[in-house]
């Protein structure tokens, strides 16, 4: 260990080295991936070269090259503990089929997990930190041990990569080897076919870029493969590079209308309350309960149409006598797993006989809409595309008969009318 650290501290940018790298880049045919890798592994960095692979949808090609050149080349795999079981199975498949002899799983520090992610849900609240403890931190001591790294990056993937060479020198004087730099998508596929490489089990299911399970979803036909990673989160890629470099997710086309009511998406006259809005002059705003209560008199004097925004934890009882003031009441579902809004809706509809618009806002998804409806919600602000389609095509996943009397519109059915209901 001591020697390695020493080596590391001595490693400083070196002019000769960078010149050498430039020369190297002229040596190989664009498509001679094996040649590039062999040169790196045997001549330039013998015993000092390694690779990090995600064992994702397009890792097989690079690993196949490794197997041909030197199956004992260290292949590091970030075992974040969050992978799909299919990915773990794929690691085994590739190891076996390609004869890779030196696949090393790197695990996050259990102390870090315990301290920062005891519930395993950090990816949900703070994916950057999740990646930090599960990928960046564990990888750091490993990167220090090698003078060169093989990557699977390709020019075609992003604009910045339009000039990706076979060999690069990094700012800390390590060499990055990119054997696939000139490969196109079609080349990769052809290579897989030519060499009978096994596909990642999830690839055929629509996963084109596969990382940890919680942070990966499916990409649509023609969408950037990496659009499926961290979908919905404002996160583009990990702080580390190798296989994880990615393009920027293409933003979903904003649908024109997001308010679904009475069987159609319609224009929404209402807007969210903003700082600086004035209680006396506001119109068509959903006023948060706290703001309303703080300025109750002014709002009651204001004759314009107004709505109310009820967030979880706020008690609808507090505005009971003023409910008729509002033509729309928005119930906030900050996460679809937060069920407090259902009770609020039922109280509004059943106990206070509020008969205006009750709308659900926030994380409104197709699997919860039927439940919301039963509780009295009659309008939905929908931004989730599959949910939008399900509503448009009138195919919500719903069991249409019920075991308990809820709401004001359901009718008794069956032999036990005290309990059984249908629409």
């Amino acid at each position, binding site marked *: 260990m001591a020697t390695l650290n020493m080596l590391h501290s001595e490693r400083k940018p070196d002019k000769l080295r960078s010149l050498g790298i430039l020369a190297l880049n002229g040596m190989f045919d664009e498509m001679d991936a094996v040649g590039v890798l062999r040169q790196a592994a045997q001549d330039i960095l013998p015993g000092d070269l390694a690779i990090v692979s995600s064992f994702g949808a397009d890792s097989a090609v690079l690993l196949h090259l490794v197997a041909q050149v030197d199956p004992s080349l260290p292949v590091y795999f970030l075992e974040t503990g969050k992978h*799909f*079981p299919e990915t773990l199975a794929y690691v085994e498949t590739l190891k076996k089929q390609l004869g890779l002899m030196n696949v090393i799983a790197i695990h996050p520090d259990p102390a870090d997990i315990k301290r920062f992610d005891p*519930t395993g849900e950090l990816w*949900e609240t703070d994916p950057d930190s999740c990646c930090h403890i599960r990928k960046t931190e564990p990888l750091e001591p490993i990167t220090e041990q090698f003078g060169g790294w093989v990557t699977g990056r390709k020019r075609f993937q992003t604009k910045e990569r339009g000039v990706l060479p076979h060999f690069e020198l990094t700012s800390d004087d390590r060499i990055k080897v990119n054997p696939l730099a000139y490969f196109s998508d079609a080349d990769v596929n052809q290579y897989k076919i030519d060499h009978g490489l096994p596909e990642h089990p*999830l690839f055929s*299911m*629509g*996963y084109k870029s596969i990382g940890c*399970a*919680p942070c*990966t*979803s*499916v990409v649509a036909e023609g969408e950037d493969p990496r659009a499926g990673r961290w*979908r919905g989160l404002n996160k583009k890629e990990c702080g580390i590079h190798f296989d994880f470099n990615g393009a920027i997710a293409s933003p979903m086309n904003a649908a024109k209308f997001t308010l679904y009511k009475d069987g159609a998406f319609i224009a929404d006259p209402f807007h969210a309350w903003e700082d600086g809005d004035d209680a006396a002059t506001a119109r068509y705003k959903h006023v948060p309960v706290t703001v309303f209560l703080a300025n109750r008199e002014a709002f009651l004097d204001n004759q314009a149409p107004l709505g109310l925004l009820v967030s*979880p934890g706020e008690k609808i009882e507090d505005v009971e006598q003023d409910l008729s003031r509002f033509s729309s009441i928005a119930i906030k579902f900050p996460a*679809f*797993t*937060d*069920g*407090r809004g*259902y*009770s609020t809706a*039922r109280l509004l509809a059943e*106990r206070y006989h509020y008969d205006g618009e009750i709308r659900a806002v926030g994380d409104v*998804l197709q*699997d*919860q809409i*039927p*439940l*919301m409806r*039963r*509780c009295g919600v009659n309008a939905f602000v929908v931004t989730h595309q*599959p949910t939008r389609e399900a509503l448009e095509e009138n195919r919500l*996943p*719903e*069991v*249409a*008969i*019920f*075991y*308990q*009397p*809820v709401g004001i519109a359901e009718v008794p*059915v*069956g*032999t*036990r009318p*005290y*309990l*059984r209901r249908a629409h």
Partner: protein
Amino acid sequence: MYRYDEFDAAFVEGRTAQFADQVARRLSGELSEDQFRPLRLMNGLYLQLHAYMLRIAVPYGTLNSRQMRKFAHIARTYDRGYGHFTTRQNIQFNWPKLRDVPAILGELASVEMHAIQTSGNCIRNTTADQFAGAAADEIIDPRPIAEIIRQWSSLHPEFTYLPRKFKIAMTGAPNDRAAIRFHDIGLQAATNGAGDIGWEVWVGGGLGRTPMIAKLINSFVPNEHLLAYLESIMRVYNRYGRRDNKYKARIKILVHEEGLETIKGQVEAEFAEVRGGVLTLPAEEVDRITAYFAPPEFKTGTATKIDVAYESIIDPAYGRWLDHNINSHRQPGYASVTISLKPIGGAPGDATDAQMDAVADIAERYAFDELRVSHEQNLVLPHVAISDLRTVYDALVAAQLAEGNAGLITDIICCPGMDFCSLATARSIPIAQEIGRKFASAERQADIGDLKIKISGCINACGHHHVAHIGILGVEKKGGELYQITLGGDATENASVGKIIGPGFEAEQVPDAIETLVDTYIARRTSADESFIAAYRRLGEAPFKEALYGNA
């Protein structure tokens, strides 16, 4: 037993189709794992260490031979030839494939079963005394009301995304075999001054990392108002239960932090609003459901006694089985039989497909086609004629299910632990197996008498170690496994939470430590009639502590 009518059948079919659609969307990738997770959980599908795990509800632990045969079939066809009966009276399959799950649910629907709400933050399967409808000490059979609760809580739109899971347990007998004081809501049959039968309502019990004994929130709620009362509790919990911390989200924490009086005030205020409304349960409907649970047509005039002492001399193993695995029945000439799923060296609660088939055959021929799953992970034949006991025993011997150890030291409750569970910090099944081997001698077990050992592989306490006479909790310490021992827990009407006795033990030391505790008890008991727990209560922990750790 309850039988589905068209409405029930259509409901389960609708739910199966809905879930099949969700699985299809997951397989096609339209649903991401984080969107799919709460949906699959709502239908009992977990992602475990090795594979998906499907948990199937056995409502209040009651099932018939057709249903048991279906489990056997599923084990054979879609799994690895066995199933695991749980402490929630359910069955789990540990190796189904996601794409097979809709087919499995279709098979279950054909025998009136499902996996609805066996996980997720919703109202789970209501559990009940495994001897319900049979026990001699019962005031009333709790299952008709349990069935009504099952229906009322099924896909309840308001209570599907609670702060945390919610478990209800019921008993119709004063001797609590359903651990109702360790559930979110416990219901115990009670009579009021006028002699009417209703329910004591206990709230806020639970195990897990913060074990709590439930508190009595209402000492008598009549059937008529029970659903309204439950809905009131649920609404208070849904609105005010903590959602900021998963470990503080159960209702026990709400009751503990706010105080029983505050919660009771909120529940009563809510109840005042809903009482007498749509949830009022008409007496005719209770009668109608009760009719499904009418006792079978018992024969009279058959043997009402069996001479256990005599049988023990002729066949000691049979004698032991009679001694421990028979529960008295309210009908003369009948008994309830516990089928132990705790063979020495086996995995507690596991049964093979062949064993499930054998049990189904026996139930069909000798037990009015009725079976139960107990929360102690055993099976029960609730109604067996005393004159058939020997035949039933012989059939169980043939199926390797005749272990006469119910309630004894080797009848261990044990969670799946590190062998299956992704949350585990330690192994638990191997510990149970080692303890079983240590105390394999049937004579020794009988001499030790009633003693409940329960083992959990982590602080989540699925193995109920807190309420064991001797509880074992596996924890991770400095990279290894360490086992903490607790003493004096009790899940019955004398509810108590066990106390940690001292520093933990390495896995290999655990059986010896248990033996030391047992020897201490044997040496100190007043007579063989004084059970371990009684002796512990009399003696306190000191002699046990001294025996384990010396006189420090």
